[in-house]
């Protein structure tokens, strides 16, 4: 094994080990040292992530055999453009959400039982859970083993549920519902894995790609359904709004920005990998139709919400719909444009949506609530927050300059090439609906009137974190070519796009 490969593998390992290490340290540390462990994790994990992304960029795809066993018996990791793009996005989002959380989340102090205030909820073991979430996300993106992916999914589900459960009664109920949905989804997925393993005796995704056939349709159906539960595709979105809206803001950012993307990523991985040879055109059409329905339903619901965080959460339901359009637009022997465009859209939505939730966190911090009716004129005391909100909103609208614009351009271009006119209309119609709900927040915030009384001053790191994410979502527009080039590393979509990268 050559030198550079070892370096690349080392960074991959560290980007999974360091968050788990930081989480464990934060768990073991006392109250004083917990924040030190958190800061260590917040500094070290992004560094490892960045180094891993950079080495992938420099050296190409890396296949890492854990413990040197190698598939089929051992577990392999695969770091190609697709997985590392999501690892990188995760690093950026969780770093900034973490900075927000340093100020906005309170650790329970001596024997305190109640759950803090809405503005600054008390979350027991926040940092351990946060870093476990981070580590399981990275592990999930890297893993190339169907069963290992199941374990990652469960870890992710547990840390998410524990993080969202502690912010009051609604949050607890939402977390329980999420936990059951998550378990249900995982078990459906695992049943599919059992069928695959039974038929082919291997769990490695690349090995499966070589042997999968039409007889695996049952596994495809089970695994896809399970992941749809977790990705909250309409009409399986019922658990999402309450869960994402009631969690503390940094957790909402991670959940809406990343956790739902993780199961979506896995779906893409499966459809572009093992299941690529299967006749999936009809299933893809179903996913596309549900995606279109999600865009309309989620947007209309967002227009009707009375709370800011509920509005943002329903917007997630709508935006997830866009991601699923890539299946009909990219299938069966479709268009690379649709696949890369869809993934790019997922990344830009991750940045924008987490920015929006962090903004909502700043608003809740300042005002103590997020009732839209009582937030008139809020832009005057919180100009930075609302500016960040507006920038992130631009991405949801799909208007240039923003990542959403390039993503939609690619999806519509694929739709036009394939003659899918209905999808082209839905994509831009959804943009107009998004304008409706984004400006439902922005417009009243610009009203000239006395700002709501008794506002608390928002610490600048919280606003800076939100603004940075929003700016990143806009700058993504100008990084489109490098990102598309990065996505091509290891040719993750070769099997569905006829061999071309």
């Amino acid at each position, binding site marked *: 094994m050559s030198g550079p490969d070892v370096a690349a593998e080392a960074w991959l390992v560290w980007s999974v080990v360091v968050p788990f290490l930081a989480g464990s340290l934060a768990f073991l540390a006392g109250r004083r040292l917990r924040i030190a462990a958190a800061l260590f994790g917040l500094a070290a994990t992004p560094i490892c992530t960045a180094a891993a992304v950079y080495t992938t960029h420099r050296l190409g795809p890396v296949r890492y055999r854990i413990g040197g066993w190698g598939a089929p018996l051992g577990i392999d990791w695969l770091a190609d453009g697709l997985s590392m793009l999501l690892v990188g996005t995760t690093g950026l989002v969780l770093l900034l959400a973490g900075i927000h959380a340093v100020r906005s989340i309170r650790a329970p102090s001596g024997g305190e039982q109640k759950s803090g205030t809405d503005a600054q909820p008390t979350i027991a073991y926040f940092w351990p859970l946060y870093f476990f979430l981070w580590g399981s996300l990275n592990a999930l993106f890297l893993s190339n083993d169907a069963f290992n992916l199941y374990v990652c999914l469960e870890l992710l589900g547990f840390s998410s549920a524990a993080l969202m459960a502690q912010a009051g009664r609604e949050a607890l109920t939402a977390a329980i519902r999420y936990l059951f949905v998550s378990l249900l989804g995982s078990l459906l997925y695992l049943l599919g894995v059992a069928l695959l*393993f*039974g038929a082919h005796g291997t769990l490695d995704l690349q090995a499966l790609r070589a042997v999968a056939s039409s007889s695996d349709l049952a596994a495809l159906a089970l695994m896809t359904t399970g992941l749809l539960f977790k990705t909250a595709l309409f009409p399986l979105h019922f658990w999402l709004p309450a869960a994402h809206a009631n969690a503390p803001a940094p957790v909402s950012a991670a959940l809406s920005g990343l956790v739902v993307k993780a199961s979506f990523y896995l779906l893409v991985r499966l459809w572009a990998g093992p299941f690529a040879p299967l006749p999936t055109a009809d299933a893809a059409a179903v996913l596309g139709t549900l995606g279109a329905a999600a865009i309309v339903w989620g947007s209309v619901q967002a227009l009707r919400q009375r709370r800011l965080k509920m509005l943002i959460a329903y917007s997630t339901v709508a935006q997830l719909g866009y991601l699923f359009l890539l299946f009909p637009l990219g299938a069966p022997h479709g268009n690379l444009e649709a696949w890369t465009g869809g993934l790019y859209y997922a990344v830009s939505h991750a940045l924008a949506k987490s920015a929006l939730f962090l903004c909502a966190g700043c608003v809740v911090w300042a005002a103590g609530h997020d009732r839209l009716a009582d937030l008139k004129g809020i832009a005057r005391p919180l100009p930075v927050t609302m500016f960040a909100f507006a920038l992130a909103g631009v991405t949801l609208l799909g208007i240039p300059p923003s990542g959403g614009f390039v993503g939609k351009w690619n999806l519509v271009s694929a739709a036009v090439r394939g003659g899918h006119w209905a999808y082209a209309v839905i994509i831009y119609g959804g943009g107009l609906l998004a304008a409706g709900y984004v400006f439902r927040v922005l417009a009243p915030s610009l009203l000239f009137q006395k700002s709501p009384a008794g506002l608390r001053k928002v610490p600048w790191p919280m606003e800076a974190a939100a603004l940075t994410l929003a700016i990143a979502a806009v700058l993504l527009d100008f990084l489109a070519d490098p990102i598309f080039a990065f996505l091509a590393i290891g040719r993750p979509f070769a099997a569905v796009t006829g061999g071309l990268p």
Partner: protein
Amino acid sequence: MPVLDTGQLYGVTGAILFSLGLYGTLRHRHLIRKILAVNVMGTGVFLVLVATRYGRGVPGAPDPVAQAMVLTGIVVAVSATAMAIAFTLRVHATTGSAHLPDADAEEPRP
């Protein structure tokens, strides 16, 4: 000659358990029942996992890789159960009941 061989018997049983568990998970609002149902579901999956590989790795014997996976799965299931029970205790402590509240009742405060 039995109608089903050992592997098939496990497989069918697993499928039945999975379906029963799925029904129970969706049907019941009592949290403990839900937790039990999920566990039944999990057991069904584990049986299928062992059954589909029965005799495939080593003739006439279960596949050790599948067994290892089931062991891992059990660990995950135990953690999930523990977590769900912890949540249930919290719900019971705050509401005095161990039911999952109605979707309507948990609509956010206006």
